[in-house]
């Protein structure tokens, strides 16, 4: 197998410009930007809090969708052929905040320090926090974060997570709330590990962001699909989850996304017993700042101008950290166009 060729725009490194760029976050946005920038002759250093580059593609998305080797070899090519330096297990942060995957980092560097040391900085730190649902009982034992669960499973295979961290799901009932890319990937992995999986969704399969095609593949593999229900509370016993209490919903008028809004039906409560629950209802951008160092919008995304630059001159942002949850291709697109802007800015053309 060959790796993704992030430097697909050139055959070898051209005459060096002497400019140094720090990229924070080695997901598809960061790596693709690195590929463009080395093809323009710049020196690139990449900082990431995980033990190796790849981002969600490597640590979260299941192997059958994106092979680990494909990402690994791609990152390695940047290092070996284009002299990109990786600084793994290094969290970049201005201020403090706990994010998913934080158990892997060993060092912290301040963003302002990178700004001092480099000619330009690119932030591509993605969406590494999971949205909390905020219903009674949502902190009981047995409630798993979808991201954490996925990188325990994949991280274990990669040798970073000890066996005892991966819950033994054989014969266990796992309830998943949500119907996006994250929900279906959690369902795939739990099903593969021998769990009885049931997905609960507040709209119908027609509105499901993951699409009927993916969901029907899951159903063929024995995953149960339960639509038009919304969680009301989590029922526990001795501090551990025992069941989920759901309300039936009906669809009302379309909301701002154009999809019909689910309306809970009062008095329709019922319970479904579960051993584990996963709320896969959305993810939140995690810029390497907490505080006023960089401007963020209402949803926590980094604000950028048409030059892809943040509120601080010389610090750029690309990928999900600026756009919210998207897809690999969108992150790559943003990474490319941001890299173009960085190159122009460094050459004084922007």
């Amino acid at each position: 197998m060959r790796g993704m060729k992030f430097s697909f725009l050139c055959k070898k490194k051209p005459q060096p410009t002497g400019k140094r760029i720090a990229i924070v976050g080695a997901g598809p946005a960061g790596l693709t930007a690195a590929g463009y920038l080395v093809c323009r002759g710049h020196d690139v250093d990449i900082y990431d809090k995980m033990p190796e580059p790849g981002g969600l593609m490597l640590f979260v998305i299941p192997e059958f969708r994106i092979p680990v080797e494909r990402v690994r070899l791609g990152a390695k090519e940047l290092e070996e052929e284009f002299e990109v330096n990786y600084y793994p297990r290094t969290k970049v942060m201005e201020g403090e905040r706990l994010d998913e995957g934080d158990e892997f980092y060993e060092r912290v560097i301040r963003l302002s320090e990178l700004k001092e040391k480099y000619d330009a900085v690119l932030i591509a730190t993605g969406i590494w926090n999971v949205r909390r649902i905020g219903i009674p009982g949502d902190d009981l034992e047995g409630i798993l974060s979808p991201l954490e669960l996925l990188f325990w499973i994949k991280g274990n295979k990669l040798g970073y997570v000890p066996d005892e961290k991966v819950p033994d799901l054989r014969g266990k009932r796992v309830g998943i709330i949500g119907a996006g890319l994250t929900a279906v990937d959690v369902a795939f992995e739990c099903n593969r590990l021998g769990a009885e999986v049931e997905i609960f969704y507040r709209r119908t399969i027609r509105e499901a962001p993951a699409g009927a095609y993916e969901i029907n593949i899951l159903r063929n593999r024995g995953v149960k699909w339960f639509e038009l229900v919304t969680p009301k509370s989590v029922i526990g016993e001795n501090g551990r989850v025992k069941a989920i209490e759901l309300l039936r919903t009906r669809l009302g008028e379309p909301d701002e996304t154009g999809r019909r809004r689910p309306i809970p039906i009062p008095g329709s409560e019922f319970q479904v017993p579960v051993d584990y629950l996963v709320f896969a209802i959305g993810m939140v951008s995690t810029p390497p700042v907490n505080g006023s160092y960089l401007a963020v919008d209402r949803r926590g995304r980094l604000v950028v101008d048409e030059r892809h630059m943040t509120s601080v001159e010389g610090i750029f942002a690309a990928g999900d950290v600026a756009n919210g949850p998207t897809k690999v291709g969108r992150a790559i697109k943003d990474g490319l166009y941001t890299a173009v802007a960085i190159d122009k800015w460094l050459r004084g053309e922007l």
Partner: protein
Amino acid sequence: MERKYLYVDYLTCIGCETCQTVCDFIHDGNPYIRIYITENKQYLPINCKHCDDAPCIKVCPTQAIYRDEDGAVRIAEDRCIGCLACLQVCPYGVPFYSLKVKAVTKCDMCAERREEGMEPACALMCPAEAIQYGPLEIVMNLVRERRAKNIPEHQRELTEEELRKSISSGFKVF
């Protein structure tokens, strides 16, 4: 020169849009591989298949469509009269009439890149390894290798029950 194939495998494609993105980037916003979303939300990237027995080549009244030395089906823009006969016969609806160029345009297997000794960008960047480029034998092997990874039974640990069954039926389990 040896005939090359550019094959998009819909069973391993995850619909991530990377191929369209990089194609869009190198062609100034006019991607030649485009994602179509089906009714049940399957994402299908469609580009020219560079067919072996290409109906578009046969039907073009001005012989504007030809095969280059790598096997790519190409359009000689200066000879195209815009009659869209090629679109009529293409099973994938690939030929795209560009008002700007005043000719049909479509995937040329990254002709400019090939001239510089580089491969088609979509195949290099697809994270799922769903796009393969190269001589037929190699492409076929890579597709089989990649497909094998996705057979769910290869990804699942066997239960005690299945293990017993397979042993009693004489199959060896690794």
